[in-house]
């Protein structure tokens, strides 16, 4: 089985985020990047699939600072091929453009399953996995938290709100949005990562991002602002009730 995993970096929320002078985007010069948590789960699920059902795992990632470490770590866990998309940064690119950049490479790899994190905290125009599936006309299932293969079919566990779990079946090729791997992403010893750096190299593909006109335009980016403070009503219960009715009438709720 041929598995492709899409992984991108996002700003690490352990660091304070700041907004740049334009007032419409993050100041990326100070942001430290970390692999998107859901993508990390997608990598883990890919490795688990390989261990259980055999196959080859290829990790695809846009070229942002720190991505090499993520790729080599994935190799130390068991990934077979590492592919870096040169000329495209996940920090500067919309999900639409990112999906388009992935599309050509995915077509070439012809994977049975494409695994992507179901979302990222900086997705503004939808998740990359679902957009990619649309572009390639492949089935997409999101919020997947378990995959098993049987007779060429993929049996999926999909999470719904309120604790509902669905079991679905999909015929590969398909794109899956991973909510959680079946076990937490494994820790891999530094010595193993260093070994991987020596034994595997990162392949590079140059892609040119093509932005979509449908991508939302950011007018202003700002930190949460304190809303107006509460009004404290004093007096006897009857008095307070009277004041409340007056306020409700003023703002038009009664």
């Amino acid at each position, binding site marked *: 089985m041929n598995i492709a995993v899409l992984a991108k970096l996002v700003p690490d929320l*352990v660091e304070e985020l700041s907004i740049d002078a334009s007032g419409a985007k993050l100041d990326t010069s100070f942001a430290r990047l970390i692999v998107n948590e859901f993508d990390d789960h997608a990598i883990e699920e890919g490795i688990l699939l390989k261990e259980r059902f055999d196959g080859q795992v290829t990790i695809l990632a846009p070229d942002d600072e720190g991505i090499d470490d993520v790729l080599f770590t994935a190799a130390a866990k*068991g990934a077979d091929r590492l592919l870096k998309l040169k000329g495209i940064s996940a920090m500067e690119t919309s999900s639409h453009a990112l999906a388009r950049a992935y599309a050509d490479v995915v077509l070439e790899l012809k994977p049975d399953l494409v695994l992507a994190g179901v979302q990222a905290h900086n997705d503004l125009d939808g998740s990359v996995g679902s957009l990619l599936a649309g572009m390639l006309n492949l089935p997409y299932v999101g919020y997947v938290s378990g995959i098993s293969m049987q007779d060429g079919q993929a049996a999926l566990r999909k999470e719904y709100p309120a604790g509902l779990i669905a079991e679905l079946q999909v015929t590969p090729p398909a794109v899956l949005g991973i909510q959680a791997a079946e076990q937490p992403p*494994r*820790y891999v*010893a*530094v*010595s*193993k990562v260093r070994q991987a750096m020596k034994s595997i190299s990162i392949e590079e593909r140059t892609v040119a991002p093509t932005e979509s006109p449908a991508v939302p335009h950011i007018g202003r980016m700002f930190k949460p602002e304190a809303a107006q403070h509460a009004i404290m009503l004093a007096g006897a219960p009857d008095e307070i009730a009277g004041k409340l009715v007056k306020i409700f009438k003023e703002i038009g709720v009664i």
Partner: protein
Amino acid sequence: MNSTSMMPKQEYYDAMLHAVQKGERLRLCLECGTCSGICPFGHVMVYPPSRLIAMLRADRFEKVLKTDALWMCVSCYACTAFCPSQIPLTAGLMARTKEELLLAGNVPAELQDALANSQRYGNALGESPRKRADWIGGITPEVKVMAKAKEPVDVLWFVGDYASYHPRVRSTSRAFATILNLLGVSFGILGPEESSDGDSQRLAGERGLFEMLAEKNGKAFGKYEFGSIITTDPHAYNALKNEYPSLGVTYPVQHYTEFLADRLDQLRPMLKREVKAKVVYHDACYLGRVNGIFEQPRALLQAIPGLELTEMAHNHSNSLCCGGGGGGMWLDGFQWEKVHVRLSDLRVQEAVAANAGTLAVACPYETPRFEDAAKTVPGASGLCVKDIAEILVEAVDSEGGQK
């Protein structure tokens, strides 16, 4: 994990023999069982050191790698200290076996988080490296951060993870800064350029991570001019003194209790305020048992007027570990599931039995561990847990103690 990453079993014995210097002393094991008897978790270890050696000799080591009980080892060094054959059990056999468990993917999840945090952020707590010096805010004279101060200092203070980030331990760091300022010491810290000393990660089997962190610290040290290093952290002290030199990072280093004991003549006249308390001192494993620093912390306490120093049942080289070493700091949940008791509880019981009002410590792991234990141990609700630096500041400050 795939089995190719595992060594063929006949090679385990060799690997253990060559894990550390003098590792080959393993051959001298008498199977006397002292190590397993003195181990604070020996009763639940399944394979305490002596059985581990027996399994190696019987070529049944693969069985060991299928259990997780070895993660109960807190690297307290008691087995090593009392081994009649002087086998380096803690740093060799135990750490090397943990490394095998780690490579085989047999690691409790909570330990994985601490290791991943150390790798990514340079501290086990997963805090922003940029905030490493935030604790110095408001201290006068200002604590120098080397990158900003751009001037040589006499001593570089290696602060460590918990002393930099843990809210309780930060107050100890502030107390020690106060003392250094009172003594007029020219000192500085690395702040954001400092990484975890890595010693506990090493003893938890992550040798590669330890080397990576040591390399980073070595680079940071190399950028600045200073005479020697002092540290408030016995684990950092051990790493800097005994482990970093083999990686090419060699500086004279002192634990702060050594540093202050050397300056007791200067410090003593400042200790004017009586601290009326019956105090027991807890010997930190990596200060006392491992590095032989028993008397300096006691000398500092005895220099405080009004303070009565007494001993707990386990003291000096026979001290009982707080449970935080060798990865224990990050395995509280795991260990609780196994034994339903914390070593810090047992230690606090000893402090209560000694009728102590204050439990004095000199290691950043201990204040939070013992304070937590004192919340649940019967009779310990009135027990104060304080670092020696904090008690010293109380004794000099006529305004009623440092906040």
